[in-house]
C-alpha cells in the first residue's frame, strides 16, 4: 500500500503532521511517499491508496494551488475512483472554487469541490468542536483564519452537535466526496477519534490491522469526550 504525503516540508502546521506519524504506527508495512513542493506528485502516474495534506500558511497555499492546478482532472478522476484523501485545515480550501481575501480579491482554487472560503487575517477563529461521524462522537479543535461556505450538493463529513461547522450556520463540519475526507478539525484528528480512524483504515482495505495503541487512544478519547461534554 502506498500513502502519499503532499508537501510535508511546508504543509505541517498545528501539529497535524501527527496524523501521518500515527498512520505510520498503524501501517508499518505501507510505503509512505513524501512529495516535496518542487517534486512530481506520486499520484500523477501512480494510484496511492491515500493522499494526505496538512495545513499551511497563506502564501504556501497559493503555491500549492498553482502546483496542483495541472493535475486537476487527475485528482478528480482519483476522487471519483475511490482513492482516499485526508486533507486537514486549510488544505480543504485548496480544492474549492476560490478563497476570498478581506479586500474582496479572490484566489482561484482547483474547483474540484463546490465551496469557497473567506479569509479574515485579523480575527482568528478558535473553537472546540463536538459532532458525529456515522453515529459516533467526533471531537477536535478549530484554529483558522478562514470561514468556508459550501455550495449546493456538498456532503458534510461530521454532523455538528456543539461548536461551529464549516461556518456558523452550517450543520456540518468538513467535506466528504467519495473517499475524500476534508476537515478543519485539528488534534490531530486521527489521534483524537479512534472510530473515525478505524473507518479510514477500513476504507484503505486494512480491516484486519489494529489501531496502534488502541486502548490508550480509547482511554484518552473517553476522558476527552467527558471534558468536551462538560465544558462546551
Amino acid at each position: 500500500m502506498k500513502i502519499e504525503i503532499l508537501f510535508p516540508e511546508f504543509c505541517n502546521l498545528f501539529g497535524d503532521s501527527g496524523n501521518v506519524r500515527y498512520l505510520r504506527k498503524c501501517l508499518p508495512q505501507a510505503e509512505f511517499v513524501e512529495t516535496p513542493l518542487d517534486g512530481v506528485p506520486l499520484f500523477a502516474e501512480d494510484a496511492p491508496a491515500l493522499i494526505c495534506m496538512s495545513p499551511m500558511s497563506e502564501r504556501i497555499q497559493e503555491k500549492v494551488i498553482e502546483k496542483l492546478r495541472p493535475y486537476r482532472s487527475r485528482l478528480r478522476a482519483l476522487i471519483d475512483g475511490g482513492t482516499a484523501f485526508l486533507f486537514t485545515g486549510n488544505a480543504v480550501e485548496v480544492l474549492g472554487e476560490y478563497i476570498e481575501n478581506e479586500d474582496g480579491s479572490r484566489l482561484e482554487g482547483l474547483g474540484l469541490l463546490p465551496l469557497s472560503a473567506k479569509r479574515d487575517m485579523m480575527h482568528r477563529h478558535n473553537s472546540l468542536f463536538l459532532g458525529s461521524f456515522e453515529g459516533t462522537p467526533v471531537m477536535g479543535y478549530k484554529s483558522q483564519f478562514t470561514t468556508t461556505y459550501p455550495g449546493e450538493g456538498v456532503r458534510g463529513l461530521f454532523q455538528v452537535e456543539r461548536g461551529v461547522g464549516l461556518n456558523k450556520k452550517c450543520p456540518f463540519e468538513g467535506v466528504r466526496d467519495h473517499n475524500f475526507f476534508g476537515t478543519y478539525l485539528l488534534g490531530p484528528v486521527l489521534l483524537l477519534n479512534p472510530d473515525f480512524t478505524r473507518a479510514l483504515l477500513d476504507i484503505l482495505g486494512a480491516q484486519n490491522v489494529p489501531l496502534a495503541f488502541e486502548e490508550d487512544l480509547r482511554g484518552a478519547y473517553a476522558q476527552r469526550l467527558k471534558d468536551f461534554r462538560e465544558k462546551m
Partner: protein
Amino acid sequence: MRKNLRFYLALLCAKGTAAGLRLLGRKATNMPGSCAIRLCPDFLGRMPRPTRVIGVTGTNGKTSTSNMVEDMLASCGYDFICNGNGSNVDTGVAAALINHSTLLGKPKKDLAVFELDERSAPRILPYLRPDILLITNIFRDSYKRNAHVEFILDILNRYIPDSTRLILNADDLLCAGIRPENPRVYFGIDRQPDDGDTCRNIVQDVRVCPQCGGKLTWDFVRYHHIGRAHCPACGFASPSPKYRVIFTDPARRTMRVELAGVERELPLPNSSTINVYNSLAAVALLSEFGLPAEKLAAAMDKLAVSETRFNEEKVNGRSLVMHLAKGQNPIACSRAFENARDYPGKKSVLLFLDDFYDATHSVESTPWLYDTDFEFLNDENIASITVAGARHWDVFLRLLMAGVPREKIAHSGDTGRAVELTPTDGVDTVFILYDVFNIRFANGVRDQIRERLKALPPKEETAHED
C-alpha cells in the same frame, strides 16, 4: 499625532485609576493603561514618548533578555521607564508611560525599555516608534493567538517603522530577514560542539532560500531552524554577526565574544544555549545603545546567576530541578525536554504542562503536543515520567507515540497524586517541568519531593561532565 481633549480625559482617568490603586495598596499594573486606551484608542500615538525608546520582542527569550538589559542599565546608573512589572501588550506600555509622566503626560525620564509582544505590534510599534528594536527569534508559538510564523513576520514587516534600528539574530533566517531596508546589526553564536548537520526536531520552519526559493545547504543546525545556511544557487548566506560568541566556558562561567571586531571575555550568567543567546542579545543591544565594552562586562558581572526558568538545588547528594516548559509553545517545550535529557545522571521527570486557566474554563488544546519533541524524553537515562493534569491521557498517548516504554510512564488527572507516582529511589535527579501558569502548584510538588529526597539515605555525588 496631537494631544486632544479626549487624550487629556483618558490621561486624567488613567492617572486617577493609578492613584486609586495606590491608595488601595495595590500595584498599578495594566489597569491605568487599559482605561486610557478604552477612552482614547490611539492614546499611545498621542502620549509623548521619552527621547530614547528601546524595544525587545521576538517569540522566545524576550522577558529574560529585557530583564537582563534593565538590570545592566540600572547597574550602570541609568534611570528609565520599563514595563518589567506589567504586561507587554499595548495597555502595559501605556500604563508604564502614564505612571512615569507628569499630569500633562510629559515623560519624567528620557529613556524607556519595553518588552513588546510581537502579536501586539500593530497597536504599539507605529506609535511608540522604538529607536532600537531587538528581535530575539521567530518561532511557532500559541496556534490560537499567533497562528504561524509567516503571520507574525507579516505583522512585524508591516508595522516596524522605517527609522527603527534593528538588532537581529543572525542564526535565525526568519528573524534576520525582517525589514531588509532598515538599519541593522546581527548577533550569533559560532558552531558549537553539540551542533549538528541536520535538524533533529519535528518543527523546522526555514525550508528554502529566502532569496530564490532554492534548496539551502546548512553549514550547521543548532535546533529547529536555528543555525547557519547558504544557497548554492543564488549565493545567499546567513548574515555575518557583528556580535558573536566564539565559545563558552561553562566551568568558568565565561564566554569568548567578538564585539564589533574586538575579541574579549565576558561573564556568562547561565550556560544553556538559550541563555547564551539572551546574554549575547543583551550585549549587542547595549553596545548599539552606546555602552562601552568595559561597562558592559562590569554590568554582566553583577547580574544575578539566578534564573527563573531553570532552578536546581542539591538535596542529600541528589538534584532537584525546576524547569519552565511553556505549554502551547512547542519550541520552548522542546528546548526544555532536551535540557531534561541532557542533564547528567538518571532522572525522574514530572510534567505539568496544562494551562490551568484553559483547563478550568475550556478543554485545553492538544495539537501543539504533536509539534513538540517528546522524543527527547525517550532516553535511557530518563527512568520515569509522571504526567499529571487535565490532559494527562493526551500527554500519555503522545509519550507512547514518541516511543517511551509504557512501564516508565505514570499518569493521573489528580495532580495531588503526582508526588506518590514519582519514584525517587535509584535516580540522581528529579526534574520538574512546569507551565508558567501552575508555578505555585509546581513549587508545592517540589517541596514535597524535597522532603522525600531528604528522607532517603544520602547519596555520594558522582563526578560528571557539566
